[in-house]
């Protein structure tokens, strides 16, 4: 009786100690530490929540086994499973995070390529629109020019459009422009102003009365008089080229006075390609 009581007491103490403090298990402690780390990892939490939960469940089983004083081999085994499940959660999260990066990078690449294609298409459209607008504008200008020159009785010739200023502008034998010719010339000057790229040759012609040399001189002086008048009306001199033909290019017979009058003339030749800009 005296011996039995302390024995029972020590047994009770031992039992109570055991229920309060389960045996330490290194593998289990390692699993607990690793699980704590994994749980704090935002990536693991969001990208591998199922795997993390399974790891937590298996850790709980291992802890219960340890609390229930299961054999060390069993606790070691369960702790090992927990450790592996934690690794599975971490690797899964790493994989999914990397896959998200891949997806984002490839969609960014696609977007960049698409942006680039849009930019290129936009640029091409703009260039096309500009060139079409330019062509329309130049077509319109050519048509307008033809209309205006037609009003000045311009003729279509292989050399271009030709406006003839008859000898009514000049006194016979003189190169002085008559005052009444200014109106006719000012509408010509207006054409030059409206078409800044337009250039022209001013060609002087004479009939065959008098000697050929003085006729060349007279035709040159008349062409120059026309040029001077146009320049004074605002046309740049560089756009006007003088040619003196004398009596070489008659348009009518010199046998009659009417024919000779047609041959005394100044022609303004606008050379330009039919469907393009007026030539320089």
């Amino acid at each position, binding site marked *: 009786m005296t011996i039995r009581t302390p024995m029972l007491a020590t047994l009770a103490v031992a039992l109570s100690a055991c229920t309060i403090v389960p045996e330490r298990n290194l593998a289990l402690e390692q699993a607990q530490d690793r699980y704590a780390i994994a749980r704090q990892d935002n990536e693991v939490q969001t990208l591998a929540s199922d795997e993390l939960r399974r790891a937590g469940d298996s850790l709980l089983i291992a802890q219960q086994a340890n609390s229930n004083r299961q054999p060390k081999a069993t606790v070691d085994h369960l702790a090992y499973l927990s450790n592996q499940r934690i690794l599975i959660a971490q*690797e899964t999260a790493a*994989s999914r995070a990397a896959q998200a990066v891949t997806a984002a*990078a490839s969609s960014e690449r696609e977007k960049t390529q698409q942006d680039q294609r849009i930019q290129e298409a936009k640029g091409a459209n703009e260039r096309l629109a500009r060139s079409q607008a330019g062509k329309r504008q130049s077509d319109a200008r050519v048509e307008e020019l033809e209309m205006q020159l037609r009003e000045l009785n311009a003729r279509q010739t292989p050399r271009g459009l030709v406006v003839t200023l008859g000898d009514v502008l000049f006194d016979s034998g003189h190169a002085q422009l008559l005052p009444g010719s200014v109106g006719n010339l000012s509408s010509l000057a207006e054409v030059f102003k409206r078409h800044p790229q337009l250039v022209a040759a001013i060609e002087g012609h004479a009939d065959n009365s008098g000697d050929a040399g003085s006729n060349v001189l007279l035709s040159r002086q008349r062409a120059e008089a026309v040029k001077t008048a146009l320049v004074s009306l605002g046309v740049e001199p560089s756009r006007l080229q003088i040619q003196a033909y004398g009596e070489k290019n008659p348009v009518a017979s010199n046998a009659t006075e009417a024919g000779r009058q047609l041959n005394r003339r100044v022609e303004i030749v606008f050379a330009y390609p039919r469907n393009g800009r007026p030539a320089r």
Partner: protein
Amino acid sequence: MNSPTPCSQRPRSWSLILMSASPLLLLAACASAPAELNQKIAVAEASVAHASNASTQESAALELQIAVNKLDSARQAMTNRDYERAQMLAEEAEVDAQVAELHAQSVRSRKAAEESRAAAQALRNEIDRRPLR
């Protein structure tokens, strides 16, 4: 030629015998190892088989080998009628194989991410250098 009936009848009766005998055979096999263990072994085998691909063999060869070895040990323990140990080894082989496979997968995914990030950067650089016409 004219006696097909006896020939076809004989195998039918054999198959009847076999069919009625197979549940008995299965029961006999189950008696030697717990059903749960057989299932665990099967799961471990499937997990190892799934993990045994070229990528895992390249990036997680050691981890995969551990799983294969544990599966072998589990089978050995089962033969030795150490069912408890066999079950533990099977369970460990299953997760080991998963760890190996997932490790290889994350290595592969990280590599792919790095490559596509580099490709996107290269394209951006190329476009930045290219003058807008």
